[in-house]
């Protein structure tokens, strides 16, 4: 039963990765692309959690934590760049 639910969640996450990548390519403005990139990071975190459940390993959660951290920092940097023109003074 858990294997079936895991397959379903993996399929949903993969499909949402495709949809978010469409928005990332299409996005009419730069802010849309930043939003799509942020969503892509969160979806990759979800995918890593699901893979960690399937392979029964704890190693992938560290990678998920690292990717969540990098995604937040890059989103903040891109949003500040779009707002002020530079990342840091």
């Amino acid at each position, binding site marked *: 039963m858990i*294997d079936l639910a895991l397959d379903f969640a993996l399929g949903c996450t993969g499909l949402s990765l495709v949809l978010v990548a469409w928005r990332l390519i299409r996005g009419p*403005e730069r802010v*849309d692309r930043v*939003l799509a990139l942020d969503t892509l990071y969160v*979806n990759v975190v979800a995918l890593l959690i699901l893979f960690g459940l399937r392979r029964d390993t*704890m190693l992938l959660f560290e990678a998920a*934590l690292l990717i969540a951290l990098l995604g937040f920092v890059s989103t903040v940097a891109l949003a500040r760049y779009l707002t002020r023109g530079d990342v840091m003074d």
Partner: protein
Amino acid sequence: MWNDLPQSWQIVVSIALVVGGLFVLVGAIGLVRFDDFFMRLHSPTKATTLGVGSMLLASIVAGAGHGHWSASEVLVGVFLFITAPVSASLMAKAALHRRGPSSAGTARQRAMDGDGGQGQPEAANEGSSRQD
């Protein structure tokens, strides 16, 4: 692999996984289908975060059933739930800085504008503040 878990725990893990997958998918569909950036900002920052939180709950329950508790799952969840509103606020500020308030308007505003003369002319300018 999962047979050593009790039956009720298996049901909890399965339901959490299915709900998480559905919420992640709903967030991505909302990102694709909404009209304006300020509407598009809602679905990934709320629905996707909730879906990932549900998947983390499933992972925590499954790990507890196997006998190993880990802090990194809880850490990922807390980090995502703290940083999602912050990054959403920063992106909304960037969009406001670039372009001003929402231009697309809600479906109700478009219906009012389409009636001709019913809607106030400044309704299109005020945008997202009149979406009730």
